């Protein structure tokens, strides 16, 4: 190193370097800018969007929630050169966001402290903004499926009549977890970007026959109408994390949406000869019945109270 500054911690790790960029506290957000309506069934779900303003570079969000509350950052979008939207999936709770970014994102008129510059004259470290300090790091994988066992309950095969009811909810509520033993501060905050996606679905069918004539040995002699119904109930999930206590980090799935897709078809006949039919359909269909993006991602844990 021919110029600049490198500072090491007690573990001989570089914590300030004029060749890197420290992350610094930008803002604490307790209220989302917008939220979906949310629901309590299926384990609960609500999607929040937090808007970060006056941030000239990409924000790195941390979130704090109460024990057993489920959270994952599902998207970050650049609105304009200094504005970002952070999308957060929860099990119908409202977490607090602590947003960090490199020092080029923020400005201060304060004239006290230490600034370290990179070779391009941008700030690498600026003590006027609270630099990020972390407590632990854990590679986190989503469970292999949302549920330990998927045994769909009895639901109405006609017109998605059971969509969103208690049986649909209980049959699709995610219950499969992976726990990691880790030491956290009393008020932990987490940086975790959700990539895992999963969907579970089940199909139910029914059929009926109406005979206007006589039934001879089970066969209709005369005019007949045959009805067929099918309903496909589903729920869609994203990977999230929670912490049952400050010694356990949990990976699980949180429901993002649920719905049902139905079809109905009718065949008419007279004296054994088909005379036509009709069909109709409705509802929403999800992409596919599978679990993807199970590769481990990095979860960084810090002490939220340090930035309150």
């Amino acid at each position: 190193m021919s110029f600049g500054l490198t500072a090491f911690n007690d573990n001989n790790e570089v914590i300030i370097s004029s060749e890197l960029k420290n992350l610094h506290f930008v803002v604490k957000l307790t209220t989302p800018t917008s939220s979906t309506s949310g629901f309590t069934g299926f384990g609960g779900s609500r999607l929040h969007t937090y808007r970060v303003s006056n941030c000239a570079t990409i924000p790195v969000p941390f979130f704090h929630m109460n024990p057993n509350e489920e959270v994952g950052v599902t998207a970050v979008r650049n609105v304009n050169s200094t504005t970002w939207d952070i999308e957060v999936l929860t099990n119908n709770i409202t977490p607090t966001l602590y947003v960090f970014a490199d020092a080029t994102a923020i400005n201060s008129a304060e004239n006290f402290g230490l600034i370290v510059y990179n070779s391009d004259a941008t700030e690498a470290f600026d003590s006027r903004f609270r630099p990020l300090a972390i407590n632990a790091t854990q590679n986190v994988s989503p469970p292999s499926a949302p549920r330990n066992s998927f045994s769909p309950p009895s639901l109405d095969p006609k017109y998605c009549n059971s969509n969103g009811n208690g049986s649909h909810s209980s049959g699709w509520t995610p219950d499969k977890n992976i726990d990691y033993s880790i030491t956290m501060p009393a008020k932990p905050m987490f940086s975790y970007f959700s990539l895992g996606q999963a969907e579970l679905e089940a199909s139910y069918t029914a059929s009926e026959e109406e005979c206007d004539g006589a039934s001879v040995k089970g066969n209709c002699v005369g005019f007949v109408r045959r009805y067929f119904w099918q309903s496909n109930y589903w729920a869609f999930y994203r990977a999230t994390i929670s912490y049952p206590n400050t010694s356990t980090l949990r990976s699980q799935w949180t429901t993002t949406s649920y719905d049902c897709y139905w079809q109905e078809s009718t065949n008419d006949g007279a004296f054994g000869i088909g005379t036509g039919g009709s069909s109709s359909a409705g509802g929403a269909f999800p992409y596919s019945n599978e679990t993807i993006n199970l590769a481990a991602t990095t979860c960084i844990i810090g002490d939220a109270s340090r930035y309150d």
Partner: protein
Amino acid sequence: MSFGFQIFDANGVLRFDSTDITWNQVTFYTVAAGGSDSRVIPELSGKAVAINQIMIDPPLFDRKAVAHTVSVNGTTVDISGGSEEVYIIVLVKG
């Protein structure tokens, strides 16, 4: 503290010191949906590396959104195979 450094704010509150641990950001960039990226990042040498992949506009339920495959080999970071546009944030520690 008998050795190391401490940095205080104007009110005498400790902001950062040599007992702290952190991840430092090296760079961030975007990789397009269906695209790939390979780059050498010399700052990764000898350090623990965390690559954060953040989807920009993933679907709620109506599209299959495959994450990019991320691999780190020495100081080379390869990103490929995903169906979504993503931000990549490269962090190092050590």
